[in-house]
């Protein structure tokens, strides 16, 4: 790549790089700049922004002081939004942990199969991507609903007499998110495990390591790049998720994603939505930078 650019004049370089640079500017940087702009102006009465724009910092300060109109006046809760941010991070961590705990053994199992089987199983992992995420989430909702597949089955075989409340709570949201993001955990971990030279496990056993110790000392550290990649690939989108908490939580589970989504919908508060989007981005960015700092060279290459 670098060799290609060497010996070219500045004008040639400009010509070669400008299409890509323009693409990034137009479809990545510009939208963020627009969001940044909106986050610093006052809201318009019917959504959008006030024109001409009036600059303000209120959208950011509102984050630490949520006031809700009630019958007896206005109640203010300084921790409401912070709480929702915290809740999202907590749900994100739970979902990521489960995706790694479920995905690692599954990836290992797939990697251990004969090549023909391996490909077939990987296709099964990827197939859900061919269907719309929204449709899949609704389908899962039907499985967990009061008269859904799971409750009917459990009642049918007589384990329960009353349908279980499986929907519209945090567990339903967590299950929905795990279901949606498990493939993102499997793909990088599978790539790492498949590359792992199993002779190293024999070497560990040969040197006196029982299987469990060999796993912790050799296989896990060697496949850690895949685990780290899975962590980032699941955590980042899950923290900002809004479709799943909306559908599976039925409005009872609030996450940053649903909150932001609402600002651009019913709440008609674009500037506040933009401010929260940027805060979320900043949080994720800090997380990723922290991760890159602490990860090794090899981990980075696996990304």
């Amino acid at each position, binding site marked *: 790549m670098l060799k290609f650019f060497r010996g070219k004049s500045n004008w040639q370089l400009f010509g070669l790089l400008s299409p890509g640079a323009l693409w990034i500017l137009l479809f990545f940087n510009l939208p963020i700049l627009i969001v940044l702009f909106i986050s610093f102006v006052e809201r318009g009465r019917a959504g959008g922004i006030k024109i001409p724009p009036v600059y303000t910092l209120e959208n950011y300060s509102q984050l630490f002081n949520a006031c809700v109109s009630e019958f007896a006046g206005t109640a203010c809760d300084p921790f409401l939004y912070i709480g929702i941010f915290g809740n999202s991070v907590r749900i994100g961590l739970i979902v990521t942990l489960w995706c790694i705990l479920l995905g690692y053994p599954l990836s290992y199992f797939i990697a251990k199969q004969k090549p023909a089987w391996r490909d077939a199983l990987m296709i099964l992992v990827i197939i859900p991507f061919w269907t719309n995420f929204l449709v899949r989430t609704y389908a899962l909702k039907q499985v967990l609903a009061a008269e859904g597949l799971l409750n009917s089955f459990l009642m049918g075989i007589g384990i329960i007499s009353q349908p279980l409340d499986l929907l519209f709570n945090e567990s339903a949201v967590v299950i929905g998110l795990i279901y949606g993001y498990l493939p993102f955990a499997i793909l990088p971990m599978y790539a790492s495990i498949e590359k792992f030279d199993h*002779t190293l496990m*024999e070497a560990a056993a*040969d040197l*006196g390591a029982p299987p469990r110790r060999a796993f912790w000392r050799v296989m896990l550290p060697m496949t850690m790049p895949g685990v780290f990649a899975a962590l980032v690939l699941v955590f980042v989108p899950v923290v900002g998720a809004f479709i799943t908490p909306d559908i599976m939580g039925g409005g009872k589970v609030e996450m940053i994603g649903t909150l932001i989504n609402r600002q651009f919908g019913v709440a008609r508060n674009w500037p506040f939505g933009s401010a929260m989007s940027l805060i979320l981005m900043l949080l994720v960015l800090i997380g990723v930078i922290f991760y890159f700092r602490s990860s090794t060279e090899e981990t980075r290459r696996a990304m």
Partner: protein
Amino acid sequence: MASSEFAVEMQDVVKQFVTPEGGILAAVNHVTMQIKENEFFSLLGPSGCGKTTSLRMIAGFELPTDGKILIHGKEMSQVPAFQRPVNTVFQQYALFPHMTVEQNIGFGLEMKGVSRAERIKRVGEALEMVRLPGMELRRPKQLSGGQQQRIALARALVNKPEVLLLDEPLGALDLKLRKEMQLELKTLQREVGITFIYVTHDQEEALTMSDRIAVMSKGVALQVDIPEAIYERPATKFVADFIGETNFLDGVVKGQNSSTVEIDLVGTGTVYVESSRKFTTGQQVTVAVRPEKLRLNNPDDKDNNLKGHVEEVIYIGTDTHYGVRFAGGHKARIREQNVTLAQKTLAKTGDEVTMSFTHTSPRILTE
């Protein structure tokens, strides 16, 4: 420790694998051998002969389908690899890439619960032993192939195993380094006094280093003996052919007078070969004789003398090789040392020549 005179015994060991087509392949087929204490023992054979599978069964990476494996008299067939008193040097070294040299070598000691201070001391000693002192903090990737090889050796030997298993450890090295390491390994083995079991497909390597060699083919140990015996008295055609170069002259036994067997090389002539074995008249046999034991145009009435025509002459500096064809369709390769300066070749292509060999130099082979 030694509750048996043998370091390792394989008793009628069978290892079967299911092939992708669903058939059953016996990688090791009823192998019995005893490896003595402090012996440098080589398993020699072409790829797929079962030598690596045998080694892996001794290490515990494979369990035998049938038969027993004993280490110092203790039955090991069902003992998992991590509990066996052996260590392995792997073909591609299998060093842990995420650990330093020190952590690699200290891994076995750590598993045994040796204290950190003691570990550091013994890792240092092991590095001295393989002549790479001060390499503790390097990573395997920062080392050359030869250095990695030595680290792998140190990682195994630091545990003072009862038996050291080596799976073609020099295969990935270039020729010069390989020769050096051969001598070094042999010296090291004598110093540490540990039984070495060495898998190789390189016959020269096996002859150079081993106290005894087992020649394997198709899952069977054809011959287990000292290098000289393997070379001078091969048990089968396969052994004679695999170790060095051999001429095979097919014939029929005409008679036997005490230890001298009279063999008719049909169409080529009659030869007499000394053998302690009994043969029946009319038996199909093969006379196997090494090229360097044949003489050209130097007949002696006490010996076998056969007349043939030179088909090719190859001068290779130290020696000249002659390819000779006989009336009965037999072919032989003769190796003459070029003893005198600028020696003229003894014959040229198309010449009629006499090939001679003593009654004691060939082997009569039946399988």
